């Protein structure tokens, strides 16, 4: 049986207390929300924190508040199930409901939180392995070693950002509030991510993600498509989040963000740019899809061959756009085909 390493567990009741505890314990402590990402990693000895600060008892972090017209606030401890089934989310931010509803399995969505999903560790099939396996292959720089096994000449880690909701939240223009013992700051979620497989979050270790704020939804339409081998369990090996604001049938604003193609969600700006002021014709869609595939640079460290994931980027972007344009292409577009 795979077991957790020993730790001390702290269960603060307020964000302030949590922030204080994290400040006190410094690098020894880690935050745990649903634990669905952290515990498997701990069992494989990717992390052996001395102290866990569990956020489960902090009621202010749980639940969805506000309205689509003024903007929604998602408590980071809201489960993925709750996010995916929330009526307001499903109606006005459908891509988010879709993404949350496509994470892993039903059981896992009952446990995993949206905050944990935003902060989920990057993945690599040289890294998500037991201690013994990693020892056998000689460890890599993300944990216990000093080279990259995917790109041996590289001085950095290319582990893959594998969150389903992160690209969607980015495309929706979400902001996050980070709280620590030193105070709090609110920043666009796009600035949370760094292009580094190891230090993938641009936040301090002791900063708690305390709120996720969605801007008003008016006029925006969104889609999320996910590539993976099975309809359940599997992480995305490509995620495509598209958010468009339409002025009649003309695109007035567009954001396309790709998940699972790099160490952070990647915004496909030129592709989005190309749509602005356009009607969603086949030609416009094809052009945007071609442009979007540009920034996708998958490496061979997840399921599916990387050339295939790259190829699918085009297809998925086109499908997401077609679906938003109401063009029937025979494929069910809210779910991954």
């Amino acid at each position, binding site marked *: *049986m*795979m*077991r957790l390493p020993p730790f001390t567990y702290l269960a603060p009741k307020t964000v302030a207390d949590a922030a204080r505890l994290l400040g006190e314990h410094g690098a020894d402590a880690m935050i745990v929300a649903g634990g669905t990402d952290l515990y498997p990693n701990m069992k494989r000895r990717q992390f052996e924190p001395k102290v866990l600060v569990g956020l489960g008892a902090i009621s202010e972090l749980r639940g969805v508040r506000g309205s689509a017209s003024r903007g929604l606030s998602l408590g980071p401890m809201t489960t993925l199930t709750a996010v995916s089934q929330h009526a307001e989310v499903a109606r006005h931010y459908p891509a988010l409901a879709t993404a949350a509803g496509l994470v892993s399995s039903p059981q896992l969505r009952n446990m995993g939180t949206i905050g944990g999903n935003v902060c989920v560790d990057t993945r690599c*099939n040289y890294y*998500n*392995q*037991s*201690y*013994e*396996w990693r*020892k*056998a*292959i000689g460890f890599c720089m993300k944990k216990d070693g000093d080279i990259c*096994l995917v790109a041996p000449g590289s001085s950095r880690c290319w582990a893959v950002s594998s969150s389903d909701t992160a690209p969607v939240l980015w495309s929706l223009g979400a902001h996050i509030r980070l709280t620590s013992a030193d105070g709090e700051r609110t920043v666009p979620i796009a600035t949370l991510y760094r292009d580094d497989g190891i230090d993938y979050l641009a936040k301090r270790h002791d900063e708690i993600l305390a709120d996720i704020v969605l801007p008003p939804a008016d006029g925006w339409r969104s889609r999320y498509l996910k*590539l993976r*081998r*099975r*309809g*359940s*369990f*599997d*992480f995305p090996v490509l995620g495509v989040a598209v958010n468009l604001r339409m002025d009649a049938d003309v695109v007035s604003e567009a954001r396309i963000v790709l998940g699972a193609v790099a160490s952070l969600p990647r915004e496909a700006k030129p592709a989005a740019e190309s749509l602005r002021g356009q009607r969603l014709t086949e030609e416009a869609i094809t052009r945007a899809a071609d442009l979007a595939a540009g920034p996708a640079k998958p490496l061979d460290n997840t*399921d*599916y*061959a990387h*050339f*295939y994931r790259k*190829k*699918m980027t085009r*297809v998925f972007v086109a499908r997401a756009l077609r679906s938003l344009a109401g063009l*029937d*292409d*025979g*494929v069910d577009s809210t779910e991954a*085909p």
Partner: protein
Amino acid sequence: MNKHEFSIIGQPLPKVDAWAKVVGETRYADDLVMPRMAHGKLLRSTHPHALIKRIDTARAQAVPGVYAVITGADLPRVKFGILPVSQDEEALCNERVRMVGDAVAAVAAQDEETAEQACRLIDIEYEPLPALMSIEESLGHPEIRIHEYGDGPNVHKNVALQFGDVEAAFARADLVREDVFFYEGNTHLPMEQHAAVAQWGADGKLTLWSSTQTPHYVHRLLARILDVPAAHIRVIAAPVGGGFGGKLDPFAHEIAACKLSQLTGRPVKITLTREEVFYVHRGRHPVLMWLKTGFTREGEITGSHIKTWLDGGAYGSYGVASTFYTGVINPVTYRMPVYKFEGARVFTNKPPCGPKRGHGTPQPRFALEVQIDKAAEQLGLDPADMRRRIVCEPFTKTANHLTVTTIGLGECIDKVVEASGWREKWRGWQTGAPRRGPLRRGVGFACSAYMTGAGTAIYWNSMPHSGVVLRADRSGGISVLCGATDIGQGSDSILAYLPAEVLGLDPKDVHVPPADTTLTPVDLGSYSSRVTLMCGMAAIQAAQRLRAVIARAVARKLEVDAELLVFRDRKVGVPDDWEKAVPFPHAVELAEAMHGVLAFPGSYAPPKRAGKYKGGGVGPSPCYSYSACAVELTVDEETGEIELHDVWIGHDVGRALNPLLVEGQVEGSVYMGIGEALMEAQVFRKGLHKHPSMLEYKSPTTLETPEIHTILVETDDPEGPFGAKEAGQGPLLPVLPAIANAVYNAVGVRVDEVPISPEKVLKGLDLKRQGKTPRVGPERIPLFKFKEPLVVESAFGQPADAVAVRPFADQETSR
């Protein structure tokens, strides 16, 4: 007996162990807890190939809570293996490790955490050797030898058999096809991770509870490995949480648990992690195949020649048998008058392959059925009709001297054609599949056959393959003691139904205790689809012997002729005078008073029909099951993804003793075939298993599993218990080629290897767009010299020997 005379046979009854399973009462090996029990853990090699220079356990021994640490030096220096011809394993490696995952040391401690921690403190110095990770590498480097024995450097087994003149057969053909196929290796992935509890008692006797499919072989081998008289060893099979062939070898954790128990004087439990289960493996061999077959214009096969190369992994396991199985079963399906088979199993530094559901036969079946599809296209024939026309004749011999009895394949094909709407859905070759956007629909067809129990045992002997002792109790209950293990297939239920049928009891009155080598007569194990037939026949024999004695006693009491007595509804009496019928418990008392203790043996050994040539012992079976399969699917031309809609499977099971159980076996087989066809693969990279986890080894979920429509065909085989044949493995076989053929039907791409991943489909579509041959699959075969073939006359078409003569059969059981 006629079908309508049965009271239990043919009924969709719940399994006898169903109730315990739905309330969580069933105690699997890992659920066992004993006083003072210690927990064990194995330390496994981190090198694919290396010499062990030094092992130092001092630091591990010093960990508080550690009871014992052992290495190979603590065990007798014997090598073992499941087959007498491949004794090449060590429980804990002494000098050399041959794969990542080979066990080298073991710890017993007060809990699993401590044992694991101690394992990490064992210092081992390795001297790495070059690792050979593929057939090509192993054949290309004869100077590096994984084992010293075998049929050549890194060649474990090299076989060649020829039945008739293949060249002449090809010369006679209107069409001769040569194709190369590859079938990737995959694993059983039972939901239960292997577990064992050993207790070496103060009396010097050892008891082992284990999740094993074959307690008898474990018993035999433990005696050798531990150098303890077999008489002092007791192996008890725990209910098995899924086997599929993965729990058929004796394993290091079982042996280590025993030794650790001896040293600590405590019961010791070892449960493998999921990752370890991937190393223990013994799953499907990766097989590269070259197949050449001649066809007449009408689709008749004139002759067939297959060459197979099996990537065996680091040890022998069942590999010699697996090698033969890639060659010997193809001829039992269609008329194939001339046949040649060459096969080689190659050692590599990977977990050893062995028997997985269908053992060695799904690979050549995939090759043959895809090739037939290609031939049908060239000949302009409907692939279902073509197969229907060339089905083997019942009660004849095949080219390679296998005796086939009943064959329900024609009926299976007809029913599947009918149920699937094949006539409307298959619209001819090159007609273009229905399209919706990038989605294209296709249908595919394939057939197969499989054996119902191996005709020979793993070690040569002339004892029964299956034994039963049936004991009647004064309560009116009976106990069926048998060494078979229920791995979920329902063998305990079969052991209850058959005697209940013979004795007019309710299955609930029958007790089937678990296999226990001190109590239950030997059954060789739950493999090769042998249990229902072999244990079933033994159980019927024992029940009939009991019935005869009870009938005599009741006849005397009722003063009637014993011949007139009927056993039903827990009573024994004359139908015309049923009020006088004696309740079964009383009948037992009468019989016990007359006869003494009521305990009767039943024995079964298969008919002796091995072909009279070297190698003729692998392949014979009392009878063969047949399956036909149609698949309907959609291929997405932009993504290469395949969505299965429906699978129709017709299966000739001889007789469905319990249709629910048979359907369950068929559905499970189809499921596993789907996984192998689309996504399951044991892949290695840099000397290691690429992803030894449930997440990355892809097993289909409810969402990938289509509707499975099962059609049972009954042929009432004279060899089987009440006519039954196997159902647990055969129906896997046609699924893969049917899917490959359906993909071709949908998008015109031939993927000649499994799994058929979206990448491969897309690659094929790209080739098609470029005007190249839209085929994806292996291009080359290794430079390899097979043995001079053993040339034997083809026995094709000869009539089967009349009613088979079986050892241990007696008057009552011959029907």
